[in-house]
């Protein structure tokens, strides 16, 4: 199978599994979904290394979202009364 098709299929599968499993576990924090989806995206991209028509701004967006989530968590821990 074409590498690009395999990459998109795997990414779709990983996102579906992420949402299904976390919702089955009654997870209600959106940041957990975003973090796991970011991880899924980077894993699929690292494994299949697909060609991109331009620079990967989606990776930057997801990384920024992940960094924001982590930063908020760290601040919560530091400033916890």
């Amino acid at each position, binding site marked *: 199978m*074409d590498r*690009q098709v395999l*990459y*998109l299929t795997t*990414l*779709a599968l990983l*996102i*579906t599994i*992420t*949402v299904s499993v*976390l*919702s089955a576990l009654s*997870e*209600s*924090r*959106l940041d957990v*979904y*975003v973090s796991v*989806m970011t991880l899924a*995206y980077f894993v699929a991209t690292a494994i299949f*290394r*697909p*060609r*991109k*028509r*331009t620079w*990967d701004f*989606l990776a930057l967006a*997801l990384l920024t979202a992940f960094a924001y989530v982590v930063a908020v968590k760290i601040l919560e821990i530091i400033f916890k009364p």
Partner: protein
Amino acid sequence: MADRNLVAGSCLAVFGALFAVGSYLVLNNVPLTALGMGLAVLGVAWALVPPNPLPREVVANLVKSSCDNIEALLEALGATERAIYLPANPHRRVVAYVPLKRAGEATLSEVVERSGRVVFRRGGSLGVIVAPPTIAAFNPSPMSERSLDALIEQALVESEIASSARAVQVGDSVVVSVRGPRVDVDSSRFKAVMGSLPACMAAQAVAWALSKPVRVVDEEREGDNLIVRLRVLDWTDKSCT
């Protein structure tokens, strides 16, 4: 013709984003919001993937016919010496200099200055300058200033010539390990002079990455792997001309 990936990916991304916003604001449902975000991510990833302009078989046939033409030229000229791959900056491509008579009367920098011509003659030195099957033919983006590994990756893996490739540089030698070469040529003269197709591609990538002349020293098959040994030459080298 509209780009299928771009249209379908954009539609999915917009639908996913609207679905996520609607689920969050109207339904206040986190799993549905996450599903929408997942669809948006998938849509953008889909839109970012370029469509293959030509099927792999067609590309392979184009490369092989190009190699056949070079083979015919080399056969007619009676070329037997190994080609030297020269990065020709003004034309943003790599050319191959095939020595026909060696007299050591020209440097490789003098050869590359005349890369627009076919025949190179300086005193007793005689050779031809051919355009090898190039990396740029496989990828819409031109070769830019990138690292050795990135260029090897683009030349061999992204162009579907091989399944993976790694390069190790030690002094003036570069060893390229090519795993699972998929496309090659049967032309014996082409192989003897230019190297096998993966070696030819690897030599071009290394020449471009290091901005130095490169020659294929030897190739060795180990099962599904091809080990290509390249030698990096100096621009002032006269022994090859």
